[in-house]
C-alpha cells in the first residue's frame, strides 16, 4: 500500500542506472510555469453517454497548454471516455453521444460547423495497444496522417523530411532509420508504440492524447515512452490517461482524479499526491480502493 507521500519516493520498476535524471527531477520539482500557462482544452459541463448510461458526468476542466496533464482513476471511471471527447472519437461508437462543450485553443470542437475530421487532424491520439497499420512500411505509417491532409503536407516540405523529423521527436529515428521500408509489424511493442506517437506527431498536432500508452509495454519500453512524453510537453499539450499512479507522478504537471464519471479533483500533480483536498482522492492514491 502506498502512502500519499511515498508516491514520489516510489522507485520506478527499473534498475537505478536506467532512470534518467530527467524523470527524477520531474518527480520532485513540479513545473513552476503551470500557474501562468494558458488553457488549451476547456471543457464545460461535459457529459458523455453510451446509450442511456453516462460514462462522464458534468465534467468542467481547464487543461493548460504545453504541459502534461494526467487523468487517473479506477477502471471504468470514464478516464478514456473523457479523453475521447477531446478529439470527438467518443461519437464513433454506436449510440454514443456527448453533451456540454469543449473548446480547444479557443475554438469550440462541438460547434455546428466544425467537422470531427478537422478536429482530429489537430488533436493526435495514441491508444493502449500499439496500432501500426500492418500493410504499410514504417515510413508509410509515419506519413499516413499527411496523406489525408495535403495542405499541411505542402507547407512543410517533403515527406521524407517530415517522416525523419517525426521519428526524431518520437526518439525512434536511430533505431529504424535503416529499415524505413520494412514492415512496421517487425518492430517490438515499445517501438511500435513510439511509431504510433511519431505518426500522431507528423501532422504537427497542437494537442496529443495518450490513452494508457504504456499499458501493454514492458518496463523498459514504458520508461522510453515516459521520457518521450516529458520531452513532448515543450512543444505540445499532452493529456495522458494512466492506471499507474507512479507514472502520473513522474510525467505530469497536473493530475485530474475521476471517479464514477465525475471529476473529483484537479490540481498540480505534487499537490494532488501530497495534499489531496478530497477524502476520496486520498483514499484512492493511498490504495484504499481501485
Amino acid at each position, binding site marked *: 500500500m502506498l502512502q500519499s507521500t511515498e508516491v514520489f519516493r516510489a522507485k520506478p520498476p527499473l534498475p537505478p542506472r536506467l532512470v534518467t535524471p530527467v524523470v527524477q527531477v520531474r518527480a520532485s520539482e513540479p513545473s513552476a510555469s503551470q500557474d501562468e500557462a494558458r488553457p488549451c482544452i476547456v471543457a464545460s459541463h461535459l457529459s458523455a453517454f453510451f446509450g442511456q448510461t453516462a460514462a462522464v458526468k458534468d465534467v468542467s476542466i481547464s487543461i493548460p497548454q504545453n504541459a502534461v496533464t494526467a487523468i487517473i482513476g479506477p477502471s471504468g471511471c470514464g478516464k478514456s471516455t473523457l479523453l475521447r471527447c477531446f478529439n470527438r472519437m467518443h461519437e464513433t461508437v454506436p449510440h454514443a453521444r456527448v453533451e456540454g462543450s469543449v473548446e480547444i485553443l479557443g475554438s469550440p470542437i462541438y460547434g455546428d460547423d466544425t467537422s470531427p475530421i*478537422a478536429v*482530429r*487532424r489537430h488533436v493526435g491520439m495514441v491508444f493502449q495497444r500499439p*496500432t501500426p*497499420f500492418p500493410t504499410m512500411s514504417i515510413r508509410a505509417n509515419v506519413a499516413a*496522417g499527411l496523406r*489525408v491532409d495535403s495542405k499541411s503536407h505542402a507547407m512543410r516540405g517533403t515527406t521524407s523530411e517530415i517522416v525523419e523529423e517525426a521519428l526524431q521527436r518520437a526518439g525512434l529515428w536511430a533505431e529504424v532509420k535503416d529499415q524505413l521500408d520494412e*514492415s512496421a*509489424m517487425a518492430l517490438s511493442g515499445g517501438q511500435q508504440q513510439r511509431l504510433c506517437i511519431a505518426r500522431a506527431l507528423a501532422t504537427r498536432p497542437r494537442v496529443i492524447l495518450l490513452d494508457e500508452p504504456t499499458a501493454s509495454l514492458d518496463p523498459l519500453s514504458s520508461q522510453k515512452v515516459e521520457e518521450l512524453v516529458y520531452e513532448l510537453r515543450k512543444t505540445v499539450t499532452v493529456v495522458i490517461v494512466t492506471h499507474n499512479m507512479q507514472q502520473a507522478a513522474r510525467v505530469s504537471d497536473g493530475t485530474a482524479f475521476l471517479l464514477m464519471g465525475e471529476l473529483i479533483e484537479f490540481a498540480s500533480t505534487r499537490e494532488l499526491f501530497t495534499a489531496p483536498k478530497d477524502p476520496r482522492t486520498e483514499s484512492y492514491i493511498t490504495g484504499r480502493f481501485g
Partner: protein
Amino acid sequence: MTNARSRHLVSGAMIGLTYLAAALATLPLLFILFHLLVKGASSISLAFFTHMPRPVGEPGGGMANAIVGTLILIGIASAIGLPIGIGAGLHLAEKKTTPLAHTARFLADVLNGLPSIVMGIFAWEVLVRPIGHFSALAGGVALGAMMIPLVTRTTEEMLLVVPTSLREAALALGYPKWRTSISVVLRTALAGIVTGALVAVARIAGETAPLLFTALGNQFWSTSFREPIAALPLQIFTYATNAYDELHRLAWAGALVLISIVLVISLAARFVTRSRFGAPVD
C-alpha cells in the same frame, strides 16, 4: 499414477484419431487426382488444347472451344459476382445492424445453400426465355449469381477480423470514414478478400447444373456472349454419358484439365494470401 497413465492413454488415442481424420480428409482429393492422371493423362497433348472436337471415329481432336468457353464464363461470372459481392460484404461489415444488412446477410446464407440447378432455372427465366435462345451471357450470369453470396460472406468475415483499434487509429489521424474503410480496413483485409474471391471462382469453374439450360454447350468454336458456348463441365458430361470409349478418354482428360485450372486458382489464392511483408495480421 493410474490416473496419469489413463490420461496419457486417452490423450494418445485422441491424437491418433485426429491424425486418422486428417489423413481421411486428404484421401478423396488424392484418389481423384490419381484416377484422373491414370485415365486422362494419356489423352492430353498439345492438340487437346488447340484442336476442336472431331466426329467419333476420327482420331485426335481436342477441347479448345470448351477450355476457352469455360474461361469466358468465369470472366463474365467474375465481372458480375466480384464487385457486387465485395461491395455487399463491405456494407455488411461497416453497417452491421441496419435492416438492409440483416436481410442481405440472411439471404446470402440462404442463397449459399441453394441448389445450383435452381440458379440455372433463374438465369433461364430471366435471360434465356425472354431473348429466345441460349447464350454465354446467361451462363455467366447464373455462375455470377452463385458467386455473389460466397464472396459477400467471405468479404464480410475478412473485414470483421480487422481489429477495431486499426479503424480507430485511422479515424484519430483525421481519416474520413470512407477513407478509413478503403485505405485501412479494406487494405488490411485485402489478402483475405482476394483469397475468398479466388476460392469462389474455383468453386463455380466446375459447376455444370447452372449451365445446362443457359450456356447449353457448343460443338463449334464460339466466343460470342450471345451464342451458346462450350464449357468443360458440359463437354465432360456429354462425353462421359456417350457410348464411345474414345470420348470417355477425352472426358477424363477434360476433367484433368478442369481440376488443374481449379488447382492453379487455389494455389494463386495461397500465394496472394502471403502479405507483402509476410507478417500475419494481428
